[in-house]
C-alpha cells in the first residue's frame, strides 16, 4: 500500500540496487508494470484456467507422493472394511490409501479432480469469449492455435489422470479406449500393441499413463501456457469498442497496482473455491466402484464431462461396418476417431476459415459484438449444439432412467437431432443476430421507446420515441459504433443512482459530514 516511489534507503530499495547493478533493467521493468490491461470481466476467464492449472500442479505433486501406478496384484487390508480381502492392483490400493490412510488425502484427491474439471471448463469458456468476439483474428491467429492445442492436451491430461486409479469406472474407460485404438484402419492393431504393450489390458498401460500424466503432458501444457501468455503480453489484449478505445490504443488499468491486485485475488478465490468444492462435493468415490475387473461394469458409466460427447457419438453412430476384401473398417472409427479429429482440425483452422468467409485481411485489436458477425456466431452456436446433442446422448441412459422415457427413443432422438439441430441452431442464431442488429439501428435512428403513447383527436396513436441525439431540435441519426445501444431511459442513468448508506440509514450529505470536524487523520489525496 505504500505510495513511496523512491527506492533509496529502504530494504526494498537496497535489494533493487543490488539487482539493478547486475541486471540493469529499471526501464524495462517500469514499462512492464505500467502496461495497461483490459478491465472487462470476460478477460479473466483465461486466468481462471491458469489458476486451476496451478492448483492442479500443486495438488498433483502432493498426490504423486502417495500414488503408486504398479499393476502388481495385492490383497487389500486397509481401514476401508468393505474391500478387505479383495484382490486389486497396487495402483487401486494406493488410491484407496490416499483416500483413507492419508490425513487430508481425500481432500487433495477431490480438489485435484475438481480442479481438472474446472480447468477444462474455464478453457472452453475462455475459448468461447475469444471465438464469439473475433479476438482470434489477425494478428492473433497463432495464439488461437496454441489455445486449441492447450484444450486438446488438457482433455488428454484429464483422461490420463482419471484412468490411473484402476477402479471399475476407469478400467471400463480404458477398455473403450482400447477398442477405439483398434478401430483405426491399417495401423490400429500395431498402435494398440504400441500403447498397451500387447492385448488389452496388459500390465504396462497404467504405469505409462502415469508418466504421461505427471511428466509429458504437464510439461507440454506448461510450455504452451508460457508461450500463450508471452504472446498475449507482447501483442496486448484486444478490447471492446468504446468511447476511448481505438485500434491503436489499449484502455484499462495498469499492471501495478490494480491489475496485479485483482489477478492475485482471483488466484486466491479460485484456489479457495476449488478447496471448498473438494471438501463439500464428493467426486469419483472409487471405493464405491471397486477394483477393475473385465467381467464387471455398472450402469451409468460416464467419462468426465469433457469426454462425454465422444461417448455420446459412439452411442449414436449406427452399426455401419465397411468390409474391404479381407479387411474391415470398424464402425467405431467414425464417431470416436474421425469426428474428434475433424472438430479439433476445424478449430485449428478457424482463423483462416473466418478470413475466407469475411475476406477481412486487416489487423484487429477492437472486438466485434457477436451480433455483428452473424455467420461466425451462427457457426459457433452450431458447434455448441452439435457437442451438446452428443453430450446429452452420452448420458441418455441416465436421462431415460430419471425421466422415465424410452432409451431407444432417446437414442433415435439423438441420431435425428445430431443431423438437424445444429443446422437449426445456425439458422436461428443467424436470424436473431440480424434482428438484434436491426433493433440497434432502429434505436439509433428513431430513438428509445419511452413507453408513452400519444393519441390524437382523430384517433391516431403514436408511440413517442426519445432521440439519442438532436441537432437544432431535430432527431439526428447516430452511426452504429459496435457498442451496446441504450434501449431504455434507465440505460442512460436517467433514473439517478441510489443514495449511499449503510444497511439501516443513509449517509448524511457531504457538507454535514464536514461540519462534524474530523481530525483529518486518514485523508486521501487526488493527484489528478
Amino acid at each position: 500500500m505504500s505510495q513511496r516511489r523512491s527506492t533509496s534507503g529502504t530494504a526494498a530499495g537496497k535489494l533493487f540496487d543490488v539487482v539493478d547493478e547486475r541486471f540493469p533493467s529499471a526501464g524495462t521493468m517500469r514499462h512492464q508494470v505500467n502496461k495497461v490491461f483490459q478491465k472487462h470481466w470476460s478477460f479473466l476467464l483465461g486466468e481462471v484456467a491458469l489458476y486451476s492449472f496451478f492448483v492442479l500442479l500443486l495438488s498433483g505433486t502432493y498426490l504423486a507422493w502417495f500414488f503408486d501406478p504398479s499393476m502388481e496384484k495385492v490383497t487389500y487390508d486397509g481401514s476401508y472394511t468393505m474391500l478387505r480381502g479383495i484382490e486389486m492392483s497396487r495402483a487401486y490400493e494406493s488410491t484407496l490409501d490416499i483416500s483413507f490412510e492419508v490425513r487430508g488425502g481425500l481432500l487433495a484427491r477431490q480438489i485435484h479432480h475438481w480442479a481438472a474439471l474446472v480447468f477444462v471448463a474455464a478453457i472452453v469458456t475462455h475459448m468461447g469469449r475469444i471465438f464469439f468476439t473475433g479476438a482470434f483474428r489477425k494478428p492473433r491467429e497463432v495464439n488461437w492455435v496454441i489455445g486449441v492445442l492447450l484444450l486438446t492436451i488438457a482433455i488428454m491430461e484429464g483422461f490420463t489422470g482419471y484412468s490411473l486409479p484402476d477402479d471399475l469406472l476407469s478400467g471400463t474407460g480404458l477398455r473403450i479406449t482400447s477398442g477405439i485404438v483398434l478401430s483405426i484402419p491399417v495401423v490400429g492393431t500395431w498402435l494398440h500393441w504400441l500403447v498397451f504393450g500387447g492385448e488389452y489390458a496388459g500390465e504396462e498401460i497404467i504405469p505409462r499413463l502415469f508418466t504421461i500424466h505427471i511428466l509429458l503432458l504437464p510439461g507440454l501444457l506448461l510450455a504452451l501456457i508460457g508461450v500463450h501468455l508471452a504472446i498475449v503480453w507482447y501483442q496486448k489484449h484486444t478490447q471492446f469498442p468504446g468511447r476511448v478505445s481505438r485500434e491503436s490504443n489499449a484502455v484499462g488499468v495498469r499492471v501495478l497496482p490494480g491489475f496485479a491486485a485483482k489477478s492475485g485475488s482471483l488466484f486466491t478465490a479460485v484456489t479457495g473455491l476449488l478447496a471448498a468444492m473438494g471438501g463439500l462435493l464428493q467426486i469419483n468415490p472409487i471405493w464405491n466402484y471397486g477394483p477393475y475387473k473385465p467381467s464387471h461394469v455398472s450402469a451409468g458409466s460416464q467419462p468426465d464431462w469433457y469426454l462425454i460427447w465422444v461417448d455420446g457419438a459412439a452411442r449414436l453412430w449406427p452399426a455401419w461396418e465397411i468390409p474391404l476384401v479381407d479387411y474391415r473398417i470398424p464402425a467405431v472409427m467414425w464417431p470416436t476417431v474421425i469426428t474428434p479429429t475433424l472438430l479439433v482440425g476445424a478449430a485449428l483452422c478457424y482463423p483462416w476459415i473466418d478470413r475466407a468467409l469475411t475476406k477481412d485481411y486487416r489487423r484487429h485489436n477492437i472486438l466485434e459484438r457477436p451480433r455483428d458477425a452473424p455467420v461466425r456466431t451462427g457457426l459457433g452456436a452450431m458447434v455448441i449444439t452439435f457437442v451438446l446433442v452428443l453430450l446429452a446422448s452420452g448420458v441418455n441412459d441416465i436421462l431415460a432412467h430419471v425421466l422415465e422415457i424410452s432409451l431407444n427413443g432417446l437414442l433415435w432422438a439423438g441420431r435425428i437431432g445430431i443431423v438437424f439441430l445444429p443446422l437449426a441452431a445456425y439458422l436461428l442464431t443467424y436470424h436473431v443476430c440480424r434482428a438484434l442488429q436491426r433493433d440497434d439501428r432502429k434505436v439509433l435512428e428513431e430513438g428509445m421507446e419511452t413507453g408513452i403513447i400519444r393519441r390524437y383527436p382523430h384517433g391516431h396513436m403514436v408511440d413517442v420515441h426519445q432521440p439519442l441525439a438532436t441537432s437544432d431540435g431535430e432527431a439526428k441519426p447516430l452511426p452504429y459504433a459496435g457498442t451496446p445501444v441504450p434501449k431504455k431511459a434507465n440505460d442512460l442513468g436517467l433514473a439517478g443512482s441510489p443514495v449511499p448508506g449503510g444497511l439501516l440509514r443513509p449517509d448524511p450529505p457531504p457538507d454535514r459530514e464536514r461540519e462534524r470536524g474530523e481530525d483529518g487523520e486518514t485523508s486521501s489525496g487526488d493527484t489528478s
Partner: protein
Amino acid sequence: MGGSGDDERPGASAQEADGKDLFRLGTQRDDVELRRYEYPWPEPGTRAEKRARRHVLYWWALTVVSGITAAVVYLAWPWQYVPPGGGGHTWYVLYTPVLGLSIGVALVSFAFGFIVLVKRFFPEEQAVQQRHDAEHSPAEDRATLAATAAEAANASGLRRRSVFTRAAGLGVGALGTGLGVTILGGVVHNPWDTTGLNESAKDTLWRTGWKPVAGETVYLRADSGDPHEVILVRPEDLGAPGIMSVVPFRESERDNPEMLSKARHRADNPATLLRLPPRTEVAPKAGREGMNVGDFYAYSRVCTHLGCPVTMYEGRTDRLFCPCHQSMFDLREHAKPIFGPATRALPQLPIDLDESGYFVATGDFTAPIGPSFWELEP
C-alpha cells in the same frame, strides 16, 4: 490499512511531490495517459469510508478465523475411517467437508477482502496506452535481415539446391530416422509375432483363455468374489431365465493361485452362461449345432462394440444389453445385434456337460471377441 493515507497527508514532504512527478513521467515514458486517476474518499473520515474499511477488515477477520479453524480441524478432528453404524462415523464423514470448507472460506474471504480493498481504496483509474502496432517491421529492417540471411547462406555454402544443402538434408533425415527407430523401437511390438509364446499369429486377437491346450478339459468356473475359489457349474445351479459370469478353469491350475487369479483378469476370458426360459425357440444357425446344452447357451461377455461387459439380461424378451453404449443382442438369433451401435454378434462359446454333470467348454469362441479391428475378415 492506515498506510495509504499517511503519505498523502496535506503538506507532505517535497520528496513526495517529486515522487508524484516522477510517477507521471514514468507513465508518459511508457505512452500511458491516465485519463482518470482519482483517489476515493476526497473527504476524509466519512461514514462511507469507515464502512468500506470495516468491510475489508470483516473479510480478513473471517480469513483469520477460518484459517485457524482449518489447522485445528486438520490436527484435532477424528479423521480415521469408521464404518457406517460405528460410533463416530458421522464425525469421520464430516472431516473432509469441514476441512475443505474452512480452507476454502479462508482463501475466498482473503480474496474478497482484497477485491473490496481494490474497488474501494485503490485510485479509480482509466489508463490509455498507445500500442505502437505496426503492420510489419520497418522496411529497412526487413530488407537487411533478409540480406543477412542470404549472405549467411552464401558464406556457408548452404545455398538452396547446393550439394552441401542436399547432403546435410540427407544427413539430418537419416539421423532423424535412426533416432526415431531407436526411440520408438522399444515400444513397438509386432502383434503377429510367433517367435514367442504364440503358436500362430491368430493366437492374439482370435484366441482367448478358452482355447483348448493339449486336450485338457476346460471347465466353466463361476466368476465369484474370491480370486482363488474354484466353483464349477452344473445346470441345476442356474434357474430359468438366468445369467452367470464364467471364466475358464483347468484342473492343472487348481493349486496355482496365480493362474486362478489370472483367469479372472484376462480381459478376453469372461463369458456369460445363460439359461433361457424353457421352450425358447432359438433360430437354427449353420455351424452352431451342439454348442448349447438344452436351454443353456454361453456367449462372450465382452461387447463387440467397444468392449464393455454385456451384463444385463432381459429374460422376458431374451435380449442381452450392454450398459455402456446400449447395444442389444437377441438371444433367439444367437446374440445377433438388433439395436444400438454394435455390428457383430457376440461370439458363442461351445459348451457341453462332462460325465459328472459339470459344464465344460468344447472349444474357443466362434469368432474374435470384443471390438472389431482392421485385420478381422468380414
